[in-house]
């Protein structure tokens, strides 16, 4: 399509090819934030291992991996939304409604586990679609829309459960295996997360969808004027986030003894924290799948460390402190770098 124009108009000019080819040093520079956070995560893990060697025990490691996997699942969805310039506060509530729906339908409505899981995921997707439509069609700010559904869905979960827990009481051992079990030496949620990571990384870094997400998050107006279907892409990000939260909710209920109406409280904030720690900017356009995994790792290792040291009441204090310290350190590095003229 473009060949005739370019060949007709571009004079043969052998010299500047070298200019165009030299992209490799900047690629490392662009991953600098992720690499800084990787160092922070390794440092945290090292410190925890010194404070309590149990951290490195097989059981604890497996459990840590299980939780990092679960956090990664919904943090990935959140990150996709954030990269495209939005925010999703409904993550925790969708996790809960998905879990509660699954147990409710099996325990009280007599559905099989397969049907219940399908229904729960479908419900999550519908919620994501509805949120996305309100945001893109009516132009309501994502913060407000997802804040509304965060409260609404949490409330429905409470109504549905009557405020108490719904457990499977020994039913569906096959389903429980998805949450509790070990496959090929790894907790099962790890394999789900791995699949989600692979698919998201592919989508964000190798497809048009990903490129459009970054373009919209960086400058929605310029993206629209370049022919990017801005609203359609934004809609998809909210559906994707809700879908991943729904899957996470099902894995939680497969792992925990029961579905409680408080399941997933504040998880949307953990997701935002993981995304930001991993290099996402809340203004959009920045971040990577690799970074989000590191962010999720930092979050879970912090929680685990506080428990291992026996100060579980301090969990939120330390987690908050780690988030603040990490972003401050990153910002200080960046300021110094820009002062020295390094971009």
């Amino acid at each position, binding site marked *: 399509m473009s060949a005739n124009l370019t060949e007709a108009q571009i*004079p043969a*000019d052998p010299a*500047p090819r070298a200019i*165009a080819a030299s992209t490799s040093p900047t690629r490392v520079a662009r991953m600098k934030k992720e690499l800084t956070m990787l160092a922070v995560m390794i440092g945290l893990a090292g410190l925890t291992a010194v404070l309590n060697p149990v951290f490195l025990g097989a059981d604890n490691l497996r459990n840590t991996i299980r939780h990092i996997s679960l956090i990664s699942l919904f943090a990935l969805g959140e990150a996709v939304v954030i990269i495209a310039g939005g925010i999703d506060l409904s993550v925790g509530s969708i996790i809960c409604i998905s879990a509660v729906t699954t147990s409710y339908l099996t325990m009280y409505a007599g559905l099989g586990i397969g049907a219940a899981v399908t229904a729960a995921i479908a419900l999550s997707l519908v919620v994501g679609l509805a949120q996305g439509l309100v945001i893109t069609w009516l132009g309501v700010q994502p913060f407000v829309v997802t804040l509304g559904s965060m409260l609404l869905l949490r409330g429905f979960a409470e109504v549905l459960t009557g405020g108490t827990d719904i457990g499977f009481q020994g039913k569906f051992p096959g389903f429980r295996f998805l949450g509790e079990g070990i496959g090929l030496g790894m907790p099962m949620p790890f394999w789900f997360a791995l699949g989600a990571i692979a698919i998201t990384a592919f989508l964000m870094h190798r497809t048009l969808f990903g*490129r459009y997400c970054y*373009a919209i998050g*960086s*400058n929605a107006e310029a993206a*629209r*004027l370049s022919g990017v279907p801005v609203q359609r892409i934004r809609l998809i990000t909210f559906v994707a986030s809700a879908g991943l939260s729904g899957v996470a909710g099902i894995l939680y209920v497969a792992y925990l003894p029961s579905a409680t109406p408080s399941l997933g409280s504040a998880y949307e904030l953990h997701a935002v924290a993981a995304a930001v720690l991993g290099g996402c900017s809340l203004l959009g356009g920045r971040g990577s799948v690799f970074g989000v995994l590191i962010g999720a790792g930092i979050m879970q290792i912090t929680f685990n460390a506080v428990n291992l040291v026996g100060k579980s009441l301090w969990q939120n204090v330390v987690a908050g402190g780690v988030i603040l310290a990490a972003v401050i350190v990153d910002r200080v590095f960046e300021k110094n770098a820009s002062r020295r003229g390094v971009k």
Partner: protein
Amino acid sequence: MPLALRGVEKSFGGVRALRGVDFDVAPGEIVGLLGGNGAGKSTLMKIAAGVHQPDAGTVSIDGQSPTSPADAIRLGVSLVRQELIQAEDLDVGSNVLLGHEPHRFGIIDRPALYSRAGKVLARVGGDIDPRTPLRSLSPGQKQRTEIARALSLDAKVLLLDEPTATLSETDAARLFTLLRDLRKNGIAMVYISHRLREVLEITDRVVCLRDGERVAELPTREATLDKLVELLAGTTNVTEVAPPTGRSEVVLSVRGRVSFDLHAGEILGLAGLVGAGRSSVLRELFGVRPCGLEVKVGGKPLSIQNPRDAMAAGFALVPEERGSQGLILSMLVERNLALPSLHKFLLEDEMAIARPYIERFRIRAGGPASGLSGGNQQKIVLGKWMARDPKVLLLDEPTRGLDVRAKRDVHDVVRELAAAGKAIIVSSSEAEEIAALCHRAIVLAQGRSRGELGRAELTDANILRYAAA
């Protein structure tokens, strides 16, 4: 003299914007400041308002030199800007006294605020209630609010930069009544405008700048429209533009408040002052805003709902704001270049799409577009559309803010594209640019076509004459 500038010099990165300019304005006088784009008018006013410091020469406001905008305001010089910076969601009174609210122990004294704002608003027309939200005012009322704000700070000199560019005729008439009133009360005013009839109507004296130098000064009563056009245009000569090729084929027909048939290989100019409605024609054709024009492409009617429709019909838009609309500044150069051409689900090799343009324009790839000069950024915006091989190119102020060399480069590309058979529309507020680049031009004012100039009559003087109407 409330405001006197002597021998003012100013350079920006090697470009000399002002070369030894003298300028003063007396109490109760309105001085018109004329000059083409880049003549140095805005720089001169920013120096008077303390925004820039001169490299050489002196600025004196009643004998004192301003060191900052706040300082200039304190000394009595206020700049009334084209794009007003106001708090839209606050009411008028709060805007007038923003930063100077009457208060007791930090608590705003609301009755005092509204009565004080009411008094000063009465001086600018008396039709604005200090309690109405600013958002609900017309552009003219907002502007008079801005003047009221300056008066509340005891302004002795008002610098008005294109004050009527976005105003309706009624609003402009009210503004003039106000300015005459202020003149009677001894306020000194500098009036920058490209609307020559207004300059003739309202000013007492006219100063003309060209390329950073003061080239003329005369009392307004001795001036005529032709005299002003002559001063502004300088020596006019028709530049040689290669005649359009493939003249027979009509690519695009537009009917409505602006009507034309655009041929393959033709460069059509849309001339007119700032606010004449040039951009909105291009934005409607590209589906950025609802299209109120009847459009036919290749003889077939076309409904354009959004930029994707326009792109599918072979249109490309180089928008007015290169930084906020044309490019994604934080994105890599090659990704910017490839963005409109991507269409497969799996990402194509963006470097392969971008390389011809990177090589041709000798641009450094691998970094974000923000790291490039304005000229190179504009070449990327052109390149990203060239990669799509469009039939119709819509160029909105394609060389705004570019230096002479970059401007020439962009013009060369535009001519080359026309020679390759593209149909091109160039919108520009610079009459010289239209005259130098286009085969013919439509001059717009108040959103409508005011006349069409063929190649033989396409001079900057003629453009100014139509646009001033």
